[in-house]
């Protein structure tokens, strides 16, 4: 059997490991448009910040593929998938046959139609190539504008601040991280950006950009005079690379829709990662969760099912964590509340500047925390409750990390003292399972 994987990032690598755990026989080929071996997109801002060396961004070595007996086609673009003939048509003219196929092609930066946005001096921060181009521009004292205020944009801004650049963030909508944070959390993060000397302009439309002969970019925005920067990082969102299965796409919707098994509408063809519109843990309509942990999970299921395991993906929990401007921002599930939800908010837990838990019908459905890393650990402990739709029980105990799951300890239902409960100074141990 020939199993082919298109992609070389989180979903593809996770699928490759997962497949080989179950099937050591089948022939596996990995095709990727980017040169190999795999690097982590998540780590690019850490490289720009000088937190990691260049070597540090790579998460596989060439011999890792050999060890898993996966043939590789790096720097090779796939033009078309032919489901009928079960072939990939490659840009260099070759055709590669497959019995089973996994599309983990990810997503690519999407840019709005702003005049001058395609010119030189305008950079994305998506690929290793992008990072290598930006790096020499990160000189102390240089001016950089970040267009957009999503995670990638702010990570770029943070890297620039750490390298001593002067940064201006321009965001069209009224708050930073508009689809990610609610107003309260956004305000806290906004304050941090200001504290680090970043010029933040929300509610600002960018009208046009012009690169001059020296390579500097002149930016016009609505509502204020033009300004000039040494470089622009455009990070206004990403779009799934879903063009390989046009017949599977839903009208008006991006992303390849997949079943719980991660199989597409085409028999034997799976998809995982950013490119997918997949099941969510809350059980609602399928969504694109372009997040590293989701891609890892989906890849794991897809890889197993490529080997015939028949697993079902329980749905993406949409969990993410980033560190920037002195704050750890961690999010999980559905943390922007809607009608009928109950909300718990706190601003004075130790080390956590802002915590919000969203409940529905007594069960936690999502959370977001800003502050110290403790918030990420707290959300980590919350995860199984969200995943299993289990009520939290004693919320204060949970928040302090003092929740006790007697079942976990296998001690449920056993008393620890034998005295009759009516004795006046009896101290019966808590024994019943929750």
């Amino acid at each position, binding site marked *: 059997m020939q199993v082919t994987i298109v992609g070389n990032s989180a979903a593809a690598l996770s699928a490759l490991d997962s497949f080989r755990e179950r099937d050591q026989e089948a022939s596996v080929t990995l095709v990727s448009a980017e040169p190999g071996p795999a690097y982590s997109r998540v780590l690019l801002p850490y490289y720009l910040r000088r937190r990691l060396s260049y070597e540090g961004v790579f998460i596989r070595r060439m011999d890792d593929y050999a060890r898993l007996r996966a043939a590789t086609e790096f720097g090779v673009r796939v033009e078309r998938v032919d489901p009928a003939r079960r072939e990939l048509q490659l840009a260099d003219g070759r055709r590669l046959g497959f019995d089973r196929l996994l599309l983990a092609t990810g997503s690519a930066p999407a840019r709005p139609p702003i005049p001058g946005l395609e010119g030189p001096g305008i950079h994305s921060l998506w690929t290793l190539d992008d990072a290598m181009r930006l790096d020499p521009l990160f000189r102390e004292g240089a001016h950089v504008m970040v267009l957009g205020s999503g995670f990638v944009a702010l990570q770029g801004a943070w890297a620039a601040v750490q390298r001593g650049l002067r940064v201006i963030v321009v965001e069209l909508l009224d708050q930073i991280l508009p689809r990610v944070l609610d107003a309260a959390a956004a305000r806290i993060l906004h304050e941090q950006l200001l504290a680090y000397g970043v010029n933040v302009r929300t509610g600002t439309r960018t009208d046009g950009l012009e690169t001059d002969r020296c390579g500097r970019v002149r930016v016009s925005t609505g509502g204020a005079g033009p300004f000039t920067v040494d470089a622009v990082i455009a990070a206004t969102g990403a779009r799934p690379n879903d063009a390989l299965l046009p017949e599977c796409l839903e009208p008006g919707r991006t992303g390849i829709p997949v079943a719980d098994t991660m199989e597409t509408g085409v028999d034997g063809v799976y998809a995982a990662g950013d490119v997918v519109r997949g099941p969510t843990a809350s059980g609602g309509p399928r969504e694109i969760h372009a997040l590293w942990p989701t891609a890892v999970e989906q890849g794991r299921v897809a890889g197993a099912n490529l080997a015939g395991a028949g697993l079902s993906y329980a749905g993406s929990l949409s969990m993410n964590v980033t560190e920037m401007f002195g704050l750890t921002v961690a999010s999980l599930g559905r943390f922007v509340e809607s009608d009928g939800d109950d909300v718990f908010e706190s601003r004075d837990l130790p080390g956590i500047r802002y915590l919000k838990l969203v409940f529905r019908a007594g069960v936690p459905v999502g959370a977001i925390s800003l502050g110290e890393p403790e918030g990420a650990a707290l959300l980590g402990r919350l995860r199984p409750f969200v995943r299993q739709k289990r009520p939290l029980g004693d919320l204060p105990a949970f928040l302090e990390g003092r929740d006790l799951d007697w079942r976990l300890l296998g001690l449920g239902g056993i008393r*620890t*003292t*034998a*005295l*009759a409960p009516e*004795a*006046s*100074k*009896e*101290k019966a141990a808590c024994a019943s399972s929750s």
Partner: protein
Amino acid sequence: MAQEREIQQTLCRMCDDRCGIDVHLEDGRIIDILGNKDHLWNRGRLCVKARAAVDMVYHPDRILTPLKRTGGGWQEIALEQALDEIAARLAEIGGRHGPRSIAVWKGEAIGFGQQEDLARRFIHALGSPNYLSNDSMCYASRYLGFTLVDGGWPVPDLENSRCIVLWGANPPFAHPNMTQYITAARRRGATLIVVDPRLSAIARRADIHADLRPGTDGALAWGLVHQIVEMGAYDKDFVARHTVGFPRVLEYARAFTPEAVEKETGVPATTVRAIARAMAGAAPHVAAYVGNGLEHHENGVNNIRAVAMLDGLLGALDREGGTFFRGAPPLRELTLYDDVPLTHLGPLGADRFPVLYDKRRECHTMTAMEAILHDDPYPLRAMIVTGANPAATNPNSTKVLEALESLDLLVVRDLFMSETAAVADYVLPAASFLERTELHAHAKHQIVSLTRKVVSWPGVQGEYDFWHDLAWRLGIGDSFPWDDETALNRWLLEPTGLSLEELAAHPEGVEYGSARPGGWREHGFETPSGKVEFTSEYLKDLGFDELPVYLSPAYVDEPDQEYPFVLITGARKLLYLHSRFRNIPRFLTAIPGPEVEMHPSDAVALGVKDGDEVRVVSRVGSVRIPVKVMSPSEIPPGTLQITHGWKDANVNLITHDDRFDPISGFPLMKSVEVRVEKGTRGPDALGGVA
């Protein structure tokens, strides 16, 4: 450069558990200490105190040269000069006031085997009966209590027991290894009963926690006697053949109904019955252990005797799974009591507390204070203190300091400038446990080990060298004929048939005997009657009740509205032992400071929160200390606890040196009447310790 790494195996003495350790050295310097997996006692387990012993040994504040007090402060002098001067002064004082005006005081830190006996030997050779030690306040009450009943203090056979009863003892923090043996028993289904006013660490695992009022343990013990007799669950055969005094026991126990016991102790009647039934059900495999918690009360010895009685009653005495006698190795006797009895010289406290001197040859430290300050019964003018810090650990620190400061000569041997050393005339550098070679026995396993001198500093003497050098200068060198520690060890070891070489080759310990339960039943108990003495003629002759009658603690009998709280002191912490180790910065990262433990309802009534500073006042003095609000089941309302040994909140400023157990002379330190004041202005009573 080659880094020479080696491991030397020895015993740890950060506390008295004496675990087997592997000391890791690099180029002759200790870099780490881990447990010796082969040692039978701790089996590789080690608490973190041992890890940080490295800090203690190399501490920058370690005293490494002798210090002499002068008008201008401490002066460093050579060892020879120090010894010469000390000897001269001792000779002069002894000449003027008689040899008994000189005393030695040996502390917990230096140990209980040959180090104790060396001090005893020296002072006797000098012609003074005045050997003082920490046993004035620890161990001796239990020794007396059990010995008066059983003829010795048996060791509980924990792992084989089916019911373990701990009285005022908290093994995890006091004798950590005992905990493993308790766990082993519980894993085989043994029940654990813990008698303690506090929810101590071990109490957390108790099947029954009897959180009684401090000092009322005797009432509970008599209540258990009552129940066991009522159930007919006592060993009739053993009682008939091996005990005296049972009829009086029957008669006296009658009053201790469960309801009466509840009234006195606060332990519910149902709990008293439940404990009795648990013990009866498991008899004769009931193993009891009594801790220091029962000793610091005015009724301590009798409470302990009552507890000891239960072993005999249940037939658990001298039996596997119960408690049986495990002798020490038959080392040569170092003390001179038989050769040179000096009873006629009036050992301090022997007239007030004859049992203490008679059975332990132990003088009474609190009486010594009177002798120093008031020449009562006669002048005590000079003292050599080794490994002890009475200024911090004896009751009524103010008076202790006053006394020590007024001595004509005070010599202190210590690793650090303790509160006691700070008022000395001479401070001599002492060798730590890693710098001495000596013999140690673990009676439970009947093994003897030889510790190693792992590191050393020039001029820092071990105990033997010190006493030897001083003895020769004072004309009693004949009593210290051995060349060094090793020669002494060889002499001590000889009767066992074992050689030093054998011990050196087996750091995991060498067996010197095998404890056999049942031996005393066969050949008789080492009491005057040869039987277990529920009633003691010996005590009767001294004017005490022959039976361990129960006396209510004063705070129960005559509650004082002015001092409405009862204070327990001295609860153990894992990382600190008495006044030691607060100068090791790493330890302070875990347990940073002193606190007074308080029930939440008391905190509310007083209007204080966790961390607030309060003043705790007794009839003796006062101390300022932060509050720690406990959980409701951890300490009873109306009861407080302060751990001793903190310089900046010394609870011994307020403990009693004027109220004693009549038999052992132990001071009142664990049921002290106090009041609590909010607000912290003003100094501690009569000033804190320097």
